[in-house]
């Protein structure tokens, strides 16, 4: 019996050992199998990354680097927010090593990604003269559905009767394949340095003396601006074939122009105000063309052909109602010596801009030469120039950025231009020049900026006198920012002088303001009080509800103030409110209310 028990025990042990060895053998095979399987799985995931926002728990578990804890964190975060990038994962609490491994295997975009952004804005103020309606209304609605974008924008200015006096619409399709972008509806074109096509509101000169004058455009965008002019209407697409981009475009739109008795165009209505319905959209403009671009890593060359046709002649016979235009542009980014430019030809007139940047971080230079022949059509263009109508201008710009010490930056530019032929009412050539020096110094919680700007130009003061006047304007400005906890204080003091040399007339003005910005969580409050005592015009950019660039013009003696409130509700809706008032003028209080909803 004892021997039987020993035998059974032996057999049992033998079986145990036998099972163990079999298990080990099986495990080895399983690992091999598993390793191949895992490799295949990862390759499959890499080919079709897992959507981190929509994948269920089981699907997320397929990603080998995600622990159960990580998956739970992701799922709980997704309930209230969307994960849009790798940084969000880090915020959730997933460690950097894991995030690094995940990068190729996950995606953030949804299979059905629907976004909506709706902006509604009303502006109200008491005008100096009677108008049938003082309400100014603007709305912009943009839907995003995967690669599609749909937009509708409408606007009514004060005095206009129709609530949809102006509207813009578009359907945009974009992807990363051959058909990069297709827009049907209203759009804007921007090519090269902007001689033929460019957004009109872009700046030419600023404190960024060596960067702003260089135009770097996205060639094709939907027209979403509230400015009721300069848009194109029809269809345009951006096709990318290897290193070539092709942008064919077609536009047929109505624009508002001032016509003379012979129905010839004297000028375009650039204000967007349509108080007289007869003058609204009274001229038809048709444009079609093709822009091509050859892009390599450090340089690009573009060629653009456009055909433009207005259904009315121009009063100025030098301008044709039907013409072709051609332009060529380039950017060569070689080493630290990039050069760029564009040359355009139309109606037997030439326009060109060429520039180069050189230097190092501590001392950078920009030289820019422009030459635009008289009566070169400027309607859709906005290249570098001293003013918005750039034809008949020749000039040379020299900008410098100097960093003499850490946290100290000096930007200066010098611009010289001339109008070699007559323009407007000026019956002889005129010249002008401008100097700008800006010194910035940043401290830990403080920043200081000093600006000296001097402009000297020849111009007519009145139509009665056939004499060109020399006009000088000099601005001294000091800005001081201070950050204290959630508050930002900005103090400005500005002194402006104007001098008419021919008549020895001096004018001057002083302006000072204090601005306080307080931001805490979802609430932003901005308040500003400005006082001024001036015989000249002061131009002052001020905060506003989003989407409005406001430049207040102040003159005389008085005070001006405004208050802005922005409050975010559940991250989806933001209410923006502004009230502004001139204390001493008849121009009454102005109110803005804007609601921005994003879903």
């Amino acid at each position: 019996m004892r021997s039987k028990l020993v035998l059974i025990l032996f057999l049992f042990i033998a079986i145990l050992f036998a099972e163990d060895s079999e298990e080990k053998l099986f495990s080895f095979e399983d690992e091999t199998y598993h390793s191949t399987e895992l490799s295949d799985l990862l390759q499959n995931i890499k080919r079709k990354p897992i959507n981190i926002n929509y994948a269920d728990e089981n699907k997320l578990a397929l990603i080998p680097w995600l622990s159960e804890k990580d998956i739970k964190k992701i799922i709980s975060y997704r309930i209230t927010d969307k994960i849009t990038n790798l940084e969000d994962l880090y915020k959730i609490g997933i460690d950097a090593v894991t995030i690094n491994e995940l990068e190729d295997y996950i995606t953030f975009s949804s299979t059905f990604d629907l976004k909506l952004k709706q902006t509604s804005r009303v502006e109200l103020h008491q005008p100096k003269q009677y108008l049938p309606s003082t309400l100014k209304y603007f709305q912009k609605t943009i839907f995003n559905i995967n690669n599609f974008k749909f937009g509708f924008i409408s606007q009514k200015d004060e005095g206009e009767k129709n609530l949809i006096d102006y509207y813009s619409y578009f359907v945009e399709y974009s992807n990363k394949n051959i058909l990069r972008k297709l827009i049907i509806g209203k759009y804007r074109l921007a090519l090269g340095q902007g001689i033929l096509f460019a957004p009109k509101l872009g700046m030419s000169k600023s404190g960024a003396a060596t960067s702003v004058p260089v135009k770097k455009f996205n060639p094709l965008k939907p027209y979403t601006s509230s400015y009721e002019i300069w848009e194109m209407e029809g269809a345009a697409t951006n096709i990318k074939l290897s290193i070539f981009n092709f942008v064919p475009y077609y536009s047929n739109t109505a624009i508002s122009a001032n016509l003379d008795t012979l129905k010839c165009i004297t000028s375009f209505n650039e204000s967007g105000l349509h108080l007289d319905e007869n003058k609204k959209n009274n001229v038809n403009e048709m444009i079609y063309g093709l822009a091509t671009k050859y892009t390599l890593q450090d340089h690009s060359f573009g060629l653009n052909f456009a055909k433009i046709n207005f259904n009315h002649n121009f009063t100025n016979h030098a301008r044709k109602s039907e013409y072709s235009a051609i332009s060529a542009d380039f950017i060569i980014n070689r080493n630290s010596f990039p050069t760029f430019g564009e040359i355009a030809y139309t109606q037997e007139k030439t326009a060109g801009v060429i520039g180069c940047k050189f230097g190092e971080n501590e001392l950078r230079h920009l030289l820019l030469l422009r030459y635009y022949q008289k009566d070169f059509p400027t309607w859709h263009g906005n290249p570098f120039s001293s003013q918005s109508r750039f034809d008949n201008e020749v000039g040379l710009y020299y900008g410098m950025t100097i960093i003499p010490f850490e946290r100290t930056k000096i930007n200066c530019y010098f611009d010289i231009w001339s109008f070699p032929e007559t323009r407007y009412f000026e019956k002889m050539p005129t010249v002008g020049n401008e100097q700008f020096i800006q010194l910035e110094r940043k401290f830990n919680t403080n920043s200081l900026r000093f600006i000296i700007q001097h402009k000297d130009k020849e111009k007519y003061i009145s139509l009665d006198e056939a004499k060109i006047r020399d006009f000088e304007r000099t601005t001294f400005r000091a800005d001081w920012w201070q950050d204290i906890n959630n508050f930002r204080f900005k103090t400005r003091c500005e002194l402006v002088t104007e001098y008419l040399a021919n008549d020895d007339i001096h004018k001057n003005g002083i302006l000072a303001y204090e601005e306080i910005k307080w931001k805490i969580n979802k609430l932003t409050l901005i308040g500003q009080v400005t006082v001024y005592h001036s015989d000249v015009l002061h131009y002052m950019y001020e905060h506003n509800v989003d989407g409005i660039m406001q430049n207040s013009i102040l003159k005389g003696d008085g005070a001006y103030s405004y208050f802005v409130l922005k409050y975010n509700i559940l991250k989806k809706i933001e209410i923006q409110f502004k009230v502004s008032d001139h204390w001493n003028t008849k121009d009454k209080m102005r109110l803005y209310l804007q609601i921005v909803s994003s879903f």
Partner: protein
Amino acid sequence: MKLFIIILMLCTTLSAIDLNLPSSAIQNATSGLVLILPSPSAAKSNPACSFTGIETSATYLFSMEDLPLYNFHVQYKYHDFGFHVGSSFLAHPLYKESNSMFTLNYNYNEFTLGSSIRYLYNKVEEYHEDSALLVDMGLLWENGNISTGLSVRNVTHSLFLEEQLPIVYLWESCFSITQKSKLSIGLEKETNFDFAFKIAGRYDVHKVLTILSSYQYKPDRIGVGAIFNLKDFSLCYSVRTHQYLSLNHYISLNYAF
């Protein structure tokens, strides 16, 4: 060879007039600032500037073909002493102006002191012909990355046709921002003119290419130039704006020995 050129220059009929014109393409590009890129002709603006070499330049003033201006300058350094002779000649069928000079400067530690004697000659056909002798003085202080120069031209208040010739004061400070970049600022005051503020930048893109740019305030001018260096030779081409007249193109050839 060097000695021959110096003797030749001294023996040449020295003829010039004291117009405040750039004496080389480099100075045309730098609006008359000389410390940012010294060349033999710099001694004309500041006699304390010392740079061994030969430089010849030519331009049609403001692109007017009947107004050619030629310059020739030689400078040589011997121990702490520098010697310079130079001449510029403005040739018009009816109007001739020339300006020739001899400069001596002495360097002591960080300081260089220099002085020039200039002979001015002017002839307007069937109108007048006269000459004058002028003295210019200059001081240069070089300290690390900063060099500062001050010069006064016509310290003797010399007369020409019984009229006083212009006295020109030029102050300039040049900063080496990096090994490749320099920045120079200066102020110039000429009799009967306002102060002219000048700023110039230099960037050595490559050992064979240097870019110069400058701005002058009142009268407003922008100057741009490129220098191509080939061993001891350098060729400079520059342009400078004028608000009412055409561009002033300038070309210089420089040999450093």
